[in-house]
């Protein structure tokens, strides 16, 4: 008896379960398209806003050449992007812009990448109200994109009937995100420092080797920054490895201490390095002493491509540390690869511009002798800020690393013999290690706006540097609450939903159709009794 009752209640439960599933699932099983999209960068730096201030998307999708883009979501592919077009869209107050980028960046042509670089720089120059999103060219998205394009073309239908047919047949899409408005996020920049001390004497002069390790691109999640500055970081770690071997060699007494500094915020005015330097200069710790003795600061910024340029604030004069370094590197080039030429590029620090052009400038303004090595011929070369900076030329990176390491080694050991290398056959950069480091860095999330103390990149760099240098330390620079010099915002990654919609006029036509149909139904219902009577009488006549 009890069992039957149990069975009965269970079946009742399943009945209600079935019922509720029917009721809940029926409308939920809609064919909504969903995409992961990455919002354009947004940050505040030295009091100005940069990037895209809004994340709002609840607009109907339009192709880029639509007549009206105001309060619409403009769907674009890479090929349609140009500076003028983007400016026009933003001026016309497009609600949002969704740009589909290829999943495989190697399919892009050189022209497309150059074009993109230009757009990227123009877009990031100021703050914009249009929300800009990037997403990968998934087949689902592309089918929506093509539908939106053809829907536009059918606006110019030949006849009224064709236009009417289009209203019923064509599909529109409403692009929606449910993310909250972007809010200030926990904003921190990090520096990782390590030292390599020469044995014996207490007060040695020192040199510093500096690279920024964060990535930068139009959207933090898309930035790979393999060359700028994955290559610099890989080279710095490799130089640290080689120098540590050199320092541990018996009978070798280098006369310099070496300071290694990895910092984030490389494209955010080198804020981490700048603040770190200011802090060290103001405190009376041992580092101050070490820093006061710093003879030369060498910054590495993008050395994985063709070209080797030494950027300085003024042409190095004979007898200065910069000249010594230049000579050392030139000697290294002559010994290792005479085909390469090192260009010295002097560029005065522009104190009127709050943004520094090169990493070394923050040291120069503190009266430290400094230079940046880069494959870029100028600070404003296109491609320094590039989302599609996904690969380096490992051979070039290897050669450059070798030259720089040899140059530094020559600098610190004061070798006058110009025919022998200091880094002998056993002390050469490891090509595999270099390429692995670059690969790791470009495949790991490391935009300055997203980094945390326990991010894999910081942990990895800290650990690797500890192998070669001593006193490795990670310091965090938090944005001050009251007057932040920099501020990051969240909502950099979101889900976009594309809902199939019909134009508003569709419902109007539908209403007319429904009314006509109901009228017919009314007439039918009214005439049924008459029809029945008629049939009845006909049949009766026949049967009688």
């Amino acid at each position: 008896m009890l069992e039957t009752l149990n069975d009965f209640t269970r079946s009742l439960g399943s009945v209600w379960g079935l019922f509720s599933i029917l009721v809940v699932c029926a409308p939920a099983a809609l064919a909504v398209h969903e995409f992961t999209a990455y919002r354009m960068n947004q940050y505040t730096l030295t009091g100005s806003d940069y990037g895209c201030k809004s994340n709002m998307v609840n607009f109907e999708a339009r192709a880029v050449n639509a007549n009206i883009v105001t309060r619409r979501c403009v769907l674009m592919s890479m090929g349609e992007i140009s500076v003028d077009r983007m400016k026009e869209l933003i001026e016309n107050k497009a609600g949002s812009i969704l740009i589909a980028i290829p999943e495989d960046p190697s399919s892009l042509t050189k022209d497309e990448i150059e074009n993109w670089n230009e757009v990227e720089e123009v877009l990031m120059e100021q703050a914009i109200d249009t929300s800009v999103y990037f997403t990968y060219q998934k087949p689902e998205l592309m089918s929506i994109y093509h539908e939106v394009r053809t829907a536009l073309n059918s606006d110019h239908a030949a006849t009224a009937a064709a236009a009417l047919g289009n209203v019923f047949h064509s599909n529109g899409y409403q692009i929606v995100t449910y993310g909250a408005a972007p809010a200030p996020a926990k904003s921190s920049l990090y520096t990782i420092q390590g030292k390599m001390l020469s044995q014996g004497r207490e007060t040695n002069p020192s040199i510093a080797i500096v690279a920024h390790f964060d990535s930068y691109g139009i959207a933090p999640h898309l930035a790979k920054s393999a060359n700028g500055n994955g290559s610099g970081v890989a080279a710095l770690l490799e130089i640290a490895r080689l120098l540590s071997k050199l320092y541990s060699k018996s009978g070798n007494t280098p006369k310099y201490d070496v300071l290694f500094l990895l910092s984030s915020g490389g494209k955010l005015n080198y804020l981490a390095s700048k603040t770190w330097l200011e802090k060290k200069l103001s405190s009376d710790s041992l580092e101050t002493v070490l820093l006061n003795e710093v003879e030369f600061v060498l910054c590495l910024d993008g050395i994985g491509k063709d070209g080797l340029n030494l950027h300085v604030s003024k042409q190095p004069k004979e007898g200065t540390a910069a000249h010594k370094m230049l000579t050392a590197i030139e000697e290294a080039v002559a010994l290792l690869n005479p085909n390469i030429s090192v260009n010295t590029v002097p560029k005065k620090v522009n104190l009127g511009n709050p943004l520094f052009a090169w990493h070394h400038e923050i040291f120069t303004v503190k009266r430290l002798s400094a230079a940046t090595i880069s494959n870029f011929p100028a600070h404003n070369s296109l491609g320094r800020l590039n989302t599609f900076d996904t690969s380096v030329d490992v051979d070039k990176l290897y050669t450059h690393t070798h030259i720089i390491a040899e140059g530094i080694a020559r600098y610190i050991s004061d070798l006058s013999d110009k025919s022998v290398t200091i880094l002998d056959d056993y002390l050469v950069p490891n090509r595999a290690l270099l390429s692995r480091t670059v690969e790791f860095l470009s495949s790991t999330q490391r935009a300055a706006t997203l980094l945390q103390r326990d991010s894999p990149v910081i942990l990895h760099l800290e650990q690797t540097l500890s192998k070669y240098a001593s006193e490795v330390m990670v310091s965090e620079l938090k944005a001050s609450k009251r007057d932040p010099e920099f501020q990051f915002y969240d909502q950099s990654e979101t889900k976009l939903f594309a809902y199939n919609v019909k134009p508003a006029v569709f419902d109007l036509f539908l209403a007319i159709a429904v009314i006509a149909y109901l009228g017919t139904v009314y007439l039918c219902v009214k005439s049924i009794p008459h029809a029945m009577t008629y049939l009845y009488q006909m049949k009766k006549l026949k049967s009688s």
Partner: protein
Amino acid sequence: MTLFHFGNCFALAYFPYLIVYKNSKLSEYSSFWPCVKAGGVYLLTQLCKMIILATFFPTYEVPLGKIDLHGELMKGAVELFDLIGLFVIISQQIGRGDLKILVAGVGWAMAELISMRLLPLWVGARGIEFSWKYIQLSFEANISLAHHIIMAMLIWMWTRNNIEKSVLPLIISLLLLCSSKQTLLELLGTLFHFSSFGILSINVMVTLLVGLVATHLYINLCIHDNSWGNPKYL
């Protein structure tokens, strides 16, 4: 879409019911409560069907695109309970035959409309996503109205004792066709990949055909049954 779209679907689904109610003997004889009672019987019948399905017929995990023939047959068999429900309404109702048919058919279809279609319409047709399925759902409600009136008509004829014995097999086979119609249509969709519009038009044609045959039988019955007089039933 918008509330306007929901309004369109709602009008398409509900107004024919209103038209039928207002322009038939139902309003003349103020048969509102009998209709509500018929709706109550509908709900009870559905509950019984669900309990029986859940107790006796286990559900199998069926891979998408394939059909569980055994399960479908069972579901089809359970549909026969609808006939019993309609029969109960017709036999409990006092009054003229045509009124019985209308009360059973309209009450039943109305209850189905409210319980099975209103919520999906409210949630779905107002949602952002557009789908033809809500317009189809609303139009199906109209077919369902005709379908249930025809079914009630057939059952009523079956219960008459002065009906010719020769037409009984025809009536029974029509009733079987009616009660298994939904299952058959679903099978068409899964087996032959008919589009939803195709299934809808087949549904309309089948219902029209059965309706014509049923009306024909009904008129014959009226001629046969001289005591009843005018068959003006709407």
